[in-house]
């Protein structure tokens, strides 16, 4: 009996590989199991090869499936495309279409299954994926009743008979599996309260609505477009607006305009879009206008790898735009974290009148995780708007202790001012004077100090004094946590800053100082996180190790555990 199973389904467009994964994820989440589901596609817009992996567990899932226990392959030609990404556990089984022999050395047992014939005989020739679900459910001990219910729901709107033939295909798959003698450990679980199934992008969108965002402007870009899609559907239903702009310059421009006019506003993009937004980021910073930008990282530079994850926008997010440009940057590690990071981004943006970047990545943004609805709750803060009696001699940019000066909203009598991308005095009037520039830079940077004080966001795992301390951020967190569990013992700890700018530098430094060795783990070929940390804290020379590589393939628990073990065994080359 097992507490978790991982599976993958690979096929051509039309095979329904991804749909099969969706159905398992919905069904398992519905009976209280924890699920993480990822998808991968070939470059074709429609058709072409597609795959998904699903990890189902009785305990929370923090990293995507590594080696899978069961692999369903409708065509080996399609599988070849994902050879780098999908591996089968040594004890795993491979279920492949009859007549397409499996390559050597993949898993322990290869079983030919007549998926197409089972589907055809059930009267649903399109539904070999549903037949495969029947086989998987029977072999892996997945909740058959919940899967049947999910199949019903999926085809409920199709014409009469479709539900019945698909259920027959599912049953045929189960019956076929009953005739097999395969030694697989089925999942053993207790049913619990149902979970929601949500992607990181959807979590950002829901968080925006919860935070009070009522204006979204964006330009389509992979892998962030689901945020645009969700908000285009939902904002108009709750009295908000969503605008698809002509480019990312206009997207952030409209967001800055909307926010200036008093409505919480957001845009979402990926690396190339963030590059275009760089100048406007500076405008929001100097004009002190709240703005939230979700940047979903993908492989870079330039167009790079639009559909795969990487952590290589870090330095851009932290430094983009010319001049001294304060902004906050918050990472998100998983789907629930994407929700909290986005609400926090609004809170910081509104409270400190500053642009805030939520740094997500394709892995978190496009995978689906089960999530407890109770976890989607977060305090919401509002911007400081001066009451009417404080408007006598109103100075929009008057210096406050924390650098924040109350902000009127156009339409308010007596609160008129001109905001400005030019350096300006306390009333917003353009100024080229050194003294004004110095004073205003100091005002704007005081906000960063205040944010650092109020939002020292990070998470720490393991003992407070460890032989090895791992530093990582964003989507690497889940993998590192599982690696810690795997290594076990009390020798390894991890520190994960959630605020990347301003960094919780004091807490981070204390952690580093308490560890004998440091290992930095990241998906950036040039080790941006390592280089960033070098500028912000003191890393011990000779005792700092770096595991950094290109994105395009997720970090794995094995990989991180291996790197940590090597450092503990003092084999690693020092930096």
């Amino acid at each position: 009996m097992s507490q978790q199973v991982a599976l993958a389904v690979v096929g051509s467009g039309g095979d329904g590989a991804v749909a099969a994964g969706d159905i398992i994820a919905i069904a398992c989440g519905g009976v209280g199991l924890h699920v993480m589901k990822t998808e991968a596609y070939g470059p074709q817009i429609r058709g072409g090869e597609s795959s998904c992996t699903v990890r189902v567990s009785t305990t929370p899932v923090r990293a995507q499936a590594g080696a899978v226990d069961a692999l369903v392959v409708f065509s080996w030609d399609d599988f070849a495309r994902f050879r780098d990404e999908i591996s089968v556990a040594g004890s795993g089984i491979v279920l492949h279409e009859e007549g397409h022999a499996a390559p050597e050395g993949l898993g322990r047992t290869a079983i030919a299954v007549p998926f197409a014939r089972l589907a055809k005989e059930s009267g649903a020739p399109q539904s070999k994926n549903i037949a495969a679900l029947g086989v998987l459910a029977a072999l892996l001990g997945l909740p058959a009743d919940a899967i049947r219910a999910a199949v019903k729901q999926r085809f409920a709107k199709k014409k009469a008979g479709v539900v019945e033939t698909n259920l027959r295909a599912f049953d045929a798959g189960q019956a076929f599996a009953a005739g097999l003698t395969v030694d697989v450990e089925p999942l053993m679980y207790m049913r619990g309260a149902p979970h929601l199934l949500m992607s990181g992008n959807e979590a950002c969108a829901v968080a925006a609505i919860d935070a009070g965002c009522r204006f979204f402007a964006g330009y389509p870009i992979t892998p962030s477009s689901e945020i645009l899609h969700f908000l285009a559907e939902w904002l108009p239903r709750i009295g908000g607006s969503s605008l698809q702009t002509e480019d990312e310059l206009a997207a952030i421009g409209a967001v800055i305009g909307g926010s200036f006019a008093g409505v919480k506003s957001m845009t979402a993009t990926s690396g190339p879009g963030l590059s275009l937004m760089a100048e406007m980021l500076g405008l929001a910073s100097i004009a002190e206008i709240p703005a939230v930008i979700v940047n979903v990282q993908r492989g870079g530079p330039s167009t790079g790898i639009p559909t795969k994850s990487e952590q290589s926008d870090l330095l851009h997010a932290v430094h983009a735009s010319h001049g001294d440009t304060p902004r906050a940057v918050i990472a998100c590690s998983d789907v629930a974290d994407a929700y909290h990071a986005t609400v926090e981004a609004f809170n910081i943006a509104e409270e400190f009148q500053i642009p805030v970047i939520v740094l997500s990545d394709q892995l978190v943004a496009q995978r689906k995780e089960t999530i407890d609805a109770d976890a989607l709750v977060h305090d919401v803060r509002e911007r400081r708007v001066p009451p009417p009696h404080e408007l006598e001699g109103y100075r929009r940019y008057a210096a406050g202790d924390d650098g924040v000066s109350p902000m009127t909203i156009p339409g308010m009598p007596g609160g008129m001012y001109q905001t400005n991308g030019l350096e300006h005095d306390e009333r917003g009037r353009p100024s080229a004077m050194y003294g004004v520039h110095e004073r205003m830079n100091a005002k704007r940077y005081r906000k960063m100090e205040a944010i650092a004080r109020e939002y020292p966001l990070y998470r720490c795992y393991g003992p407070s004094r460890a032989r090895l301390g791992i530093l990582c951020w964003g989507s690497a967190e889940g993998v590192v946590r599982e690696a810690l569990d795997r290594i076990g013992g009390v020798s390894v700890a991890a520190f994960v800053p959630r605020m990347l700018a301003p960094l919780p530098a004091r807490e981070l430094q204390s952690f580093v100082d308490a560890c004998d060795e440091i290992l930095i783990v990241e998906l950036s070929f040039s080790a941006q996180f390592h280089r960033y940390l070098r500028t912000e804290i003191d890393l011990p020379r000779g005792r700092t190790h770096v595991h950094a590589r290109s994105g395009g393939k997720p970090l794995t628990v094995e990989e991180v555990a291996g790197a940590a073990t090597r450092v503990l065994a003092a084999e690693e080359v020092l930096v």
Partner: protein
Amino acid sequence: MSCEAVYNANDYKSDLKPVWCPGCGDFGVLTSVYRALAESRREPHETVIVSGIGCSSRLPGYVETYGFNSLHGRALPIATGVKLAAPALTVVAVGGDGDGIAIGGNHFLHAARRNVDITYLMMDNEIYGLTKGQAGPTTPAGDKTKSTTYGNPDASVDPCRLAISLGASWVARGFSGDVKGTTALIARAIAHRGFAFLNVVSPCVTWRGDDQHKELRAKVRSVPADHDTASAEAAQRLCGESEHLTVGVLYDVERPTLLGEMMSIRWRAQGDAAPPTRTEMLRTFGAGFPRTSP
């Protein structure tokens, strides 16, 4: 909220002194803006003026309303955001020809296409003034400027012809030397439902020479009384007459505006049903919500 209190042009003057050169056409435009705003009978705090970068983009600072002096070329997307967020405000975008047609040209296309409910006032001086005299998109071909030592190799653009072809629903031309006429045009632009584009020819005495005012004034004539403002072809023809500078409303049609479309989208999304609750929104992520009590 329009009001009965009467404002005069001076109420709109800020205490900031323009940085413009003596003789600059933009002074005339500024006076027209003061007067047109007073005529519009809107409270000063109900207006937002958004600009890009350039000599003319300094204008918001000289007007006592809410103002936003933004980035080079980006006034229109910011103005669009302001209008969508606060539909009750009067939103006027201002800037120069380089700002709006060169670096910001793409936004011009899309603001016009969307028919966003704002006024766009372009002060056209046929030159980059603030950067000290380089050719711009409206500089005539062949002209020698600081950046076109041997003559401008590029054909110039007529902003009004461009605006009509882009789908602007209201297009007019003014001349900065004609304060009265320009005032009337600005007031009409503000009153128009949809994207109103007003190109005011506003001579740069510093980089285009002292004779500009005189030469232009000699060419100015009003839109003929029999001009059909609903005809894009007729409007294009008027623009094309190079011997004249035809001022007045060239094109004026009604078509759906961005704000109207946004309201219609809300209706299509929700009708007169109550807005969905958060629970309903979360239910799209799984039949399992809300949690059934044990």
